[in-house]
């Protein structure tokens, strides 16, 4: 297994939304590392902080949200040592603008509303190229046509002058991908890119993303709540619960050997052919309100294996296998190496 270069390292990321009732802790101490050429899936139910994590990487968290001091989002796309990287959590607007759409780009859940309805798709792709690179408009247009072709749009030279409302949802998402890849980013963040599309188009878009990852060498951060999608495209998975990563593992390992009770619950709640005729398992209870997170493990109230310690203290990372960590007291007793932060050696 070759050691890939790290390109993004998130440490102790906390994003709080300051509301009248108090701080809503959307992301509360998240950490993970992303490697070159790897697809990292972030899985979790609605409201667990997946999207906020993604938004904070690009500095797109808006009022009343705030990336709390001490959070680190180190981007290392162009450097080797983390010390030389750019901390996106504290970067200036100008530094962020240089990264956005250029080094790190993003595609969103609703392709139809994510494109501006009053500009042609060509204008929107060309704009992305011309703000980051000094190329002529004609050249940018040629590149845009070429990109549209690469994302599988037929007749790109005529589609480029179409407005988003003239295209289908799947086409719009392809346009979004073309736009996101237009400056050869090191990292593509895809926030539920297939949720709004129908199943056949979903498969096409996922396949396309996989192909482009190989071709452009772009790392992908895929945010989803769909374990089927994860199995199909991800290399590595972070399972998030109530603002925290609870388990991180390579995709095969996670499906074979899920450790955290929440991950186990997620796996069981997935319909499969083997469980035909049975009722689907559910995880009882609901996600805790991010305004009033418990002192101990956030999952304690819903956990079938809850112990007294779970309500007292936050669990630490426990190493299960190479690049497989879990944050749960069930495994802490097993005397495995404990780490403050996931420092993952290959």
């Amino acid at each position, binding site marked *: 297994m070759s050691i890939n270069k790290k390109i993004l390292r998130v440490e102790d990321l906390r994003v709080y939304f300051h509301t009248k009732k108090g701080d809503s802790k959307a992301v509360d101490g998240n950490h993970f590392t992303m490697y070159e050429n790897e697809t990292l899936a972030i899985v979790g139910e609605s409201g667990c902080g997946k999207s906020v994590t993604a938004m904070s990487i*690009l500095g*797109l968290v808006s009022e009343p949200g705030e990336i709390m001091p001490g959070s680190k989002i180190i981007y290392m796309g162009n450097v080797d040592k983390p010390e030389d990287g750019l901390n996106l959590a504290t970067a200036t*607007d100008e530094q*962020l*603008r*240089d*990264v*956005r*759409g*250029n080094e790190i*780009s*993003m595609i*969103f859940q*609703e392709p139809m*509303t*994510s*494109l*501006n*309805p*009053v*500009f*042609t798709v060509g204008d929107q792709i060309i*704009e*992305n190229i011309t*703000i*980051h690179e000094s190329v002529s408009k004609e050249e940018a247009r040629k590149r845009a046509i070429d990109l549209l072709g690469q994302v599988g749009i037929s007749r790109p030279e005529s589609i480029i002058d179409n*407005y988003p*409302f003239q295209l289908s949802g799947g086409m719009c998402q392809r346009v*979004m991908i073309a*736009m996101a890849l237009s400056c050869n980013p090191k990292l593509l963040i895809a926030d539920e890119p297939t949720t709004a599309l129908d199943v056949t188009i979903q498969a096409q878009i996922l396949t396309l993303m996989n192909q482009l990852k190989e071709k452009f060498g772009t790392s992908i951060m895929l945010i989803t709540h769909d374990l089927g999608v994860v199995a199909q495209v991800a290399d590595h998975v972070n399972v998030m619960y109530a603002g925290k990563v609870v388990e991180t593992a390579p995709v095969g390992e996670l499906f074979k050997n899920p450790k955290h009770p929440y991950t186990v619950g997620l796996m069981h709640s997935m319909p499969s052919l083997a469980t035909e005729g049975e009722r689907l398992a559910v995880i009882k209870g609901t996600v805790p309100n991010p305004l009033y997170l418990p002192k101990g493990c956030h999952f304690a109230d819903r956990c079938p294996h809850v112990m007294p310690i779970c309500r007292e203290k936050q669990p630490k990372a426990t190493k299960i296998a190479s690049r497989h960590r879990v944050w749960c007291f069930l495994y802490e007793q097993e005397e495995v190496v404990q780490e403050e932060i996931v420092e993952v050696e290959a």
Partner: protein
Amino acid sequence: MLRYTIKRLLTMIPVVLVISIMIFGVVKAMPGDEVTTYLGPGSRASEQTRMEVREKLGLDKSLPEQYVRWLGRVATGDLGTSVALRKPVSEIIGSYIWNTFYLNVLALIIALIFAIPVGIKQAVKKGSAFDNFWTVFSLLGISVPTFFFALVLIFYVALNFGLPLSGMRDTMLSSFGYQSAWQEFCDVAVHSILPVTVLAFGSFATFSRYVRNSMVEVINMDYVRTARAKGLKEKTVIYKHAFKNAQIPLVTLLGMYIPSLFSGAVILETVFVWPGIGKVLIDAVNQRDTSLIMACLVFSAILMILGNLLSDLCYSLVDPRVKVDG
């Protein structure tokens, strides 16, 4: 586009006809008649003379016949003669309408120059002290009656700073003749300050509300987030990506404003004795000057329809989703 325009223009004809019949009916339903106006107030003319004047003005005919005769004249381009001013109506309108147009266009431009940036900034800083201040300010502008604000300005500003209170030109200067075009320009400019302020205040209020509200709607849209994610400057995000979408409802409002550019602010022109078309209309109504009233009102009606047509056509310019075809 051309076919659509022609079609819309053709459908205008019956609409204008119906409107003119209604206006004619209302004018004729007013008490008093043109004979008194024609003869002058307090005239002691005999019944015989009155009958002759009635006949001369065609008032002895039945109402439908009077209307048809009016229509026939208008069709040949003759708008009739004002009985009060003894001048052709077209001449009167032609000389006063530009005063009104000048006043309104100036006020509209000033209002837009301020309303667009203020409205946008309000939307960006929604809920802030800035937003609240301008919300209150524009609510004042919408709810304070024109004449009241005009009187307040006259009382507190004009009297203290020596600004002219009424009219468009200085009586002395204009009757003796201006020495230079520059002098005339300055004279009109000074006289415009108060009426333009009052008009611009009202328009500013309306437009800044519109800009703010339509910007608030688009500013949280997904495509605005996409624009930010591209690495665009915040200014470009707001003024290009968001505002282009917020313009769509503004176009309707602007289309509705076009007729008022010509048809005048009746109350304002009366308060400031501005020699505009609104003042002409008020005088005409007071004197039962049928031809003049008819001409002014039908003209406004036509402008209103044209304004609507224009804003429909402009939709297709700002919003590619709107297609106009026959």
